[in-house]
């Protein structure tokens, strides 16, 4: 494995970091969470101009043909700046979803997204399930023209701003637990209603009720019988993106904490002179380096052909990112004292963001259970 960024990747990283530090500082983020849509469409247009929104689409579809590493570079930059944007659902996951559809339509979608004009959100999460992938009760019934979808999706990030939604639904009449389809639905479709909400980390989203939403045949993004595989791919793409974003948030937190330990004085000395705190900061560094390696591993594994190997890898990635993120987030807050628990300081927002990333598409504890259940870890 080669972990060095190529020149192009390094340039992308530098350009994005510069743009985000100019355009997406913490004050902007606070303002965004207090008014309007909750994220910055102008910044999104600038992403489009830089090609960021075309990055993961294949060249065949008119994209830039970026892979896991390119996505990682972007998501890490977004995390470091604590920038809220629909990049993961609206670009990374869509790119993963276009694999199995008609090339012309894929190109049209890739172009619409790449231009920044078309926003897609992912509506998957439902109430009360232990199965982050297939715990889907929304139903898709066959109709003469295509499908009819009914169900409730909870807290889909950026869904209130989206033009279209990728919705998962259980295929009626089939029995297996993974008989789930993946559908692309116009957000204004008849029978679809959205209720806007804000997550704890300030990210906008919506609950979605689908009441007999009728769509045609082309809404199904999965090939017949291939829904489960496609859904897994989508979730894995998201987990890899979230792992990278989490590394960015953690890096920001450790930088801020180190800076705080260098500058804040109590008892006539800098906080950093207390060895108890030095050790905490050092443990943060240990954790983030583990998280970074995990995110790199994730970037490589999105393209792994063997489904079982991939599944195990992503359970491990989820567990590790969750564990390290919690530790780094909580420790950063603790070492900032009162500032850490104040909404006016960015450190607490970092902890909240890490928690959202940790809990999206399954949690660390369940990932550990899944990893154990997948077997093959111990010889029997």
């Amino acid at each position: 494995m080669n972990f060095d960024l190529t020149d192009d990747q390094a340039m992308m990283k530098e350009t994005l970091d510069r743009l985000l530090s100019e355009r997406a500082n913490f004050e902007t983020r606070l303002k965004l969470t207090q008014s309007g849509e909750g994220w910055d469409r102008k910044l999104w247009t600038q992403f489009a101009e830089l090609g960021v929104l075309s990055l993961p689409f294949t060249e065949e579809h008119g994209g830039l043909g970026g892979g896991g590493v390119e996505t990682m570079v972007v998501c890490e930059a977004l995390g470091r700046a604590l920038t809220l944007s629909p990049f993961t659902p609206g670009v990374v996951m869509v790119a993963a979803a276009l694999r199995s559809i008609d090339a012309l339509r894929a190109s049209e979608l890739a172009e619409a997204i790449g231009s920044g004009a078309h926003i897609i959100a992912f509506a998957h999460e439902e109430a009360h399930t232990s199965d982050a992938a297939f715990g889907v009760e929304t139903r898709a019934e066959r109709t003469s023209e295509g499908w009819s979808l009914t169900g409730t999706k909870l807290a889909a990030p950026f869904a209130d701003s989206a033009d279209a939604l990728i919705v998962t639904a259980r295929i009626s009449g089939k029995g297996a637990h993974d008989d789930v389809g993946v559908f692309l639905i116009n957000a204004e479709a008849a029978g679809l209603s959205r209720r806007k909400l804000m997550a704890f980390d300030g990210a906008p989203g919506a609950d979605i009720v689908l009441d007999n939403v009728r769509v045609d045949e082309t809404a199904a993004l999965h090939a017949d019988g291939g829904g489960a595989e496609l859904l897994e791919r989508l979730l894995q793409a998201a987990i890899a993106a979230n792992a990278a974003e989490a590394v960015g948030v953690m890096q920001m937190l450790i930088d801020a904490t180190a800076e705080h330990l260098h500058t804040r004085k109590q008892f006539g000395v800098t906080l950093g002179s207390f060895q108890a705190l030095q050790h905490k900061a050092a443990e943060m560094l240990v954790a983030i380096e583990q998280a970074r390696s995990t995110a790199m591993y994730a970037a490589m594994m999105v393209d792994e052909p063997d489904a079982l190997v991939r599944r195990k890898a992503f359970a491990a990635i989820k567990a590790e990112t969750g564990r390290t993120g919690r530790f780094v987030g909580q420790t950063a807050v603790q070492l900032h004292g009162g500032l850490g628990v104040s909404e006016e300081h960015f450190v607490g927002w970092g902890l909240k963001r890490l928690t959202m990333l940790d809990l999206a598409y399954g949690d660390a504890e369940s990932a550990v259970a899944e990893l154990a259940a997948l077997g093959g870890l111990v010889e029997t």
Partner: protein
Amino acid sequence: MSRSLSAVDEAFRQKAVDWLDGHVADFGLPAREGLSLEQDVELARRWQKVKSENGYAVISWPAPWGPGGTVTQQALFATEESKRGFPAGHLVISLGMPTPMVLRYASDELKERFVPPAIRGETLWAQLFSEPAAGSDLAGLRMRAKRQGDDWVLSGQKVWTTLAQFCDYGVCVARHDPSLPKHKGLTYFIVDLKAPGVTVRPIRQLTGEVHFNEVFFDDVVVPDAYRLGGVGDGFKLAIETLMMERYTAAADETGFGPTLARFIELAAETPGVRGETALDDGGVRAEIARTYALQQGLVAIHGRALAEMSAGRTPGPEGSIHKLASVRHRQHLSTLALDLLGPDGLRQAPGVNPKTDFHYSWLDAPTLRIAGGTDEVLLNTIAEKILGLPQDHRPDKGVPFDEIPS
């Protein structure tokens, strides 16, 4: 130590339980659902008044202030009250630290003026110690108190002042003489938060609630009669206040989070990864057992502290130990609950309660590891005071405050 109560205490508890049950609908958890913080504080004031009219306010305080009950009875009442979700927490500071300090140190005239309305919940009191440059290192505070005839003039800034936006008065430490070493130049005052020159700016917390504030003093005139203790006794009195705080903060084995029963309920409602519900999961069951064991220990340590207090002695490190263990564990348990709940509940919602809502409990837990003495400071105190280990190097000790480089 015996956990069974004396007949007198048991009778007291039973009577209190009946009385509390009769008020749950009006003041307990059901009455608080969906209230804003402001409305909840208002409810807490009214609740305090009802308690004071029925002999349940400041139970252990001697006449004429309280009904002269025991510390044990006060703790029993608080436990039952907290179980039913009454809003007593908003008065924990007001009646827990500032008012007792007024009782200990103010003139009879001021006691008569200030204490009864505080007991009835008509006035609320804040604790104004921390400043931007002085948190753990309280003696580093910079707020100035200048003598002017019979008065003092206070100027400077306090921060993280809990509920100051609703408070009428507070206790405050300020520097009367910067040429003295840092611990020596401090004096302790009562301050009127409605006085000219006081500005309160609320600060929103991680949880989205506005629980604490910045308080600015711009030449605020304070009569010398409001000084508690001697000139220069400020640090000693502040520590005395904080010792009370550490003990108050220690009285709930859940660390002021949801109960273990609540966690079990949640696990039983959550579909399991390894079994039908999360409650069938060996990992979750082990965690419940671990929590039970830990909380039994905390109840016992609380009992030890109560016994010390009943015997008229000051509790030792029990408060610090209780706070360290209970709050850390609350954070741990809330994190596990988040795993069970998934991301859906992580949304902004007003009026949630940390005793019942695990999301809120998780968000709020870090504040308790900082407020009232951080984990690290408590550990330092244990290491230095109990284990007798040497203190860290403190180059500013004994140096005149105005010669310490900032």
